[in-house]
């Protein structure tokens, strides 16, 4: 079963990011939204874990939230940016959505 996981909190604030990476299954996708986009910041411990997960899992970030925080160009390679329409598409393309709050 393919699942879309959303993370909306920074890994520096909550453990939702770590919990998600522990549970995510191959073929699923992770979408970073709101403060969750900080999880993909280059050079951080979270990004190292995320890069490792990206072998099995597609990782996306909500472009508006990345830009709102001035994080464009500061995220690790391979994170695909989507707009709100892309968010909707990710929801419909996966069988389930799990929000890690």
């Amino acid at each position: 079963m393919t699942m879309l996981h959303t993370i909306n909190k920074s890994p520096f604030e909550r453990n939702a990011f770590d919990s998600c990476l522990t549970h995510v299954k191959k073929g699923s996708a992770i979408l970073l939204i709101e403060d969750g986009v900080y999880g993909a910041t280059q050079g951080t411990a979270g990004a190292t874990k995320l890069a490792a997960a990206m072998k099995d899992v597609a990782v996306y970030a909500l472009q508006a939230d990345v830009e709102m925080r001035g994080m464009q160009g500061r995220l690790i390679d391979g994170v695909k940016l989507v707009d709100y329409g892309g968010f909707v598409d990710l929801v419909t393309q996966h069988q389930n959505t799990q929000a890690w709050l």
Partner: protein
Amino acid sequence: MKLAVLVNEGPYTHQASDTAYLFTRAALEKGHEIFRVFFYHDGVNNGTRLTVPPQDDRNIVKRWTELAEKHKLDLVVCIAAAQRRGILDENEAKRQGKDANNIAPGFRISGLGQLIEAGIQADRLVTFGD
């Protein structure tokens, strides 16, 4: 596709209410059906018509009301969460002996069964919260 949205965070808290609104709008623009938006926990605070945000700020409650009017959305506020936080419609105000109600246009108060139904009826349930 038929989508349902769950909002667990109040307005002007972090960003969940904004994200939920923008997601819902994008889904409607793409031609999807929004079966219901359910407001639970602090999310019920999205349903008071008494908010008066500064004029240069977004009006989160009004935005939901306008989207509901435009697309005939079913915006449901959880009754137990609403009563704890002082969100009342006319009937509930009367039943609880209160002198006023504050539910915003486009919202209705109902029970948790409405969330369960949304989870069953919709193809996807998307949660936004704190």
